[in-house]
């Protein structure tokens, strides 16, 4: 009998940084499986790595059995358990229900060897003492970025950032890293408390508020955001730029030419998940700056851009799959900056407010192979389980 069971199969591509071991790869299905099995075609052809892995619910979240080419079967235990050989516990499979926002991972202290370096005009580089276990495309937010009681980077604490992983203990974020009012964090910050949290489900509804860190002035205006904006061409957006950030000219209000009515702009091009162009000549605008003083951080308002509507009449464009695709968003579960993850709720107008909640399972870094690997998967939810 299989009256209430659920069966699903499909294929996915291991997510992460090109040429490196894959990070976490999410698979969206309309139920919570109690059995998962994957076959890694790329690893089998290469004759190296995890070619097959499987999981049953009773093993616990984060665990897995795996078959590594030339090694044979091994076991990854849940966090805190004992795994085979040098395998890292908790890096197997887990199920996921992304339905409620404002959920975060544990506080991750940068540690004594950790810090944040002022890399360049476009980047800050975060170094952790222990492996950060992040994947490119994850979102994080920082806390306690004191170097001394009066210096550090508290100006960026609380802002969501997209992560680009550059190594097991390093990643970069987009910001004006050479701002004179930022002081590099070293030795884990004041009292070793400098830390970040991973934002578990950063995009459950889209489009949403985004945080500009750089605005290029010109006959059109290019906005760079700290994390994916999820806007599309034709999106109507409004700005709230507090005075310390300079370019208040962009603000919705006040409107000196039509008092009381908000000023909106349209997105004319989307360069990537964190960059878009709007239809305003900002040549004579006050330059945008994020160089706020450290001591101004208590109560510091952030510069924001919000979706206010759209001018589109058609649905999402055909991309080789469904004729009428669901909206696609950069939801923290893709390493791509150009192709988002499809939602599960059918076609919608391009730029509409959409629900992006989902459930499914995560293929962990211990079984996910190498970035770009082709993985076939099966997932079951059985009628009955005898624990």
């Amino acid at each position, binding site marked *: *009998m299989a*009256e*209430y069971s659920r069966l699903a199969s499909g294929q996915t591509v291991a997510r992460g940084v090109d040429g490196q071991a894959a990070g976490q790869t999410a698979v969206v299905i309309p139920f919570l499986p109690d059995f998962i099995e994957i076959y890694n075609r790329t690893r089998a052809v290469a004759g190296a790595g995890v070619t097959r892995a499987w999981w049953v619910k009773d093993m616990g979240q984060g665990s897995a059995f795996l078959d590594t080419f030339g090694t044979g079967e091994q076991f990854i235990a849940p966090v805190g358990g004992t795994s085979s050989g040098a395998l890292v516990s908790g890096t197997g499979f887990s199920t996921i229900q992304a339905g*409620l*926002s*404002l959920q*975060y991972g544990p*506080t991750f202290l940068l540690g004594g060897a950790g810090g944040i370096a002022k890399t360049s005009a476009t980047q800050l580089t975060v170094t952790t003492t222990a492996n950060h276990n992040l994947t490119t495309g994850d979102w994080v*937010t920082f*806390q*306690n*970025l004191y170097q001394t009681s009066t210096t550090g980077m*508290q100006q960026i*604490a*609380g802002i969501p950032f997209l992560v680009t992983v550059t190594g097991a203990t390093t990643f970069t974020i987009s910001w004006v890293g050479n701002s004179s009012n930022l002081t590099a964090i070293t030795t884990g910050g004041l009292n070793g*408390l400098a*830390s970040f*949290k991973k934002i578990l489900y950063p*995009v*459950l*509804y889209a*489009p*949403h*508020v985004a945080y500009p860190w750089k605005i290029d002035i010109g006959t059109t205006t290019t906005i760079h955001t700290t994390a994916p904006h999820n806007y599309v061409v034709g999106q*109507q957006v*409004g700005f*709230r730029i507090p005075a310390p950030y300079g370019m208040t000219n962009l603000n*919705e*209000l006040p409107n000196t*030419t*039509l008092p*009381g*009515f*908000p000023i*909106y702009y349209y997105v004319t091009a989307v360069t990537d998940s964190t960059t878009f162009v709007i239809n305003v000549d900002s040549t004579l605008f006050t330059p945008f700056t994020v160089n706020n003083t450290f001591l101004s*951080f*208590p*109560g*510091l*308002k*952030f510069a*924001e851009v*919000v*979706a*206010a*509507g*759209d*001018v*589109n009449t058609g649905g999402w464009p055909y991309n080789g799959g469904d004729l009428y695709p669901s*909206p696609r968003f950069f939801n923290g579960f893709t390493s791509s900056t150009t192709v988002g993850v499809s939602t599960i*709720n*059918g*076609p*919608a*107008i391009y*730029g*509409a*407010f*959409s*629900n992006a909640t989902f459930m499914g399972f995560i293929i962990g870094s211990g079984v996910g192979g190498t970035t770009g690997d082709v993985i076939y998967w099966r997932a079951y939810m059985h009628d009955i389980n005898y624990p």
Partner: protein
Amino acid sequence: MSITTTGNLGPMILQSLAPAMLYVPTPTMNYITVCDKVSMPTHGGTTCRFMRPRALQPPTIQLGNSGIDPPAQVPQRDIIDAQMAFFGTGCIINEQVILQDQEGVLAWVSERLAVAMRQAEDLILRDYIVSAASTINAGGGSNADNPTNLGVSDFSLVATTLDTNNAYKFMSGIEGMDRFGTGPVRSAYFMLSSTELQSDFDGLTGSGFLSQWNYPTNASALPAEYGSVYNIRILTSSEAPVARGVSANGQDVYYNTVVGKQAVTHINQDGYSMNLIYRDPYYSGMLAQNATLAVKFAQAQAITQDTAIRNLLSTRLASLVI
């Protein structure tokens, strides 16, 4: 003498079920309260579309005596789209449960499903507002965090912002009365806050906060209303959004949603919303063993006036100890 006790002649049935079920702790659901309501028509596609005309330029330039008409204006409009989504949950109940259990399982499971459905409706709105509405970090408090705890200046700032944005207030004021300990209440926006902030609100008594109990009359106060500060009336709920440990100093961040009329719209699907579905065991397998009880509904939501809503983010004055 032999005394017969319950030790040697105990009751054959030891337990008796109390006549009423115990209450189920359930948060106050405030978000649906402040939403406009729109029904998406059946056969109307996947996406609900709103249209707002843009204001026309007031003709402040005099015509003069030339007899020439000024340039014509081109009316324009803004469009907001929201995609419908469907939700549901249910229970599969074996007939033996229904047959043998002493209390009305189907009745109370139906009730719980209905409450779950209503709570989902509210939580979806809550999380959507967290996602889509812009924020103001509180800076009027004294705890040197970002955001700070709430100071009365934060209430003033956010009300000033909404007023400047020409938002519509929800409530007209309450005129003062000759009643000891009461004071007049201003016309107000609503602020949806966490119950965890109530002690901070109490701390503002005397410097702007007026408890709901100190209103001249409670006639217009909502059940969840805790009080008011200046032009803001505060509704509290234990399910109001809190981002744990993510302030600049690692404290909890509270999303206090300050909202005017028409800022958020809740969209239901005409002819579909709030279905409670009971399927007799007859419809299960060949032996008709399992009944099902389920709920499903459709919902979309949109910020229909982005200038009339702000999430006032704050921390607390002191760590919460419960």
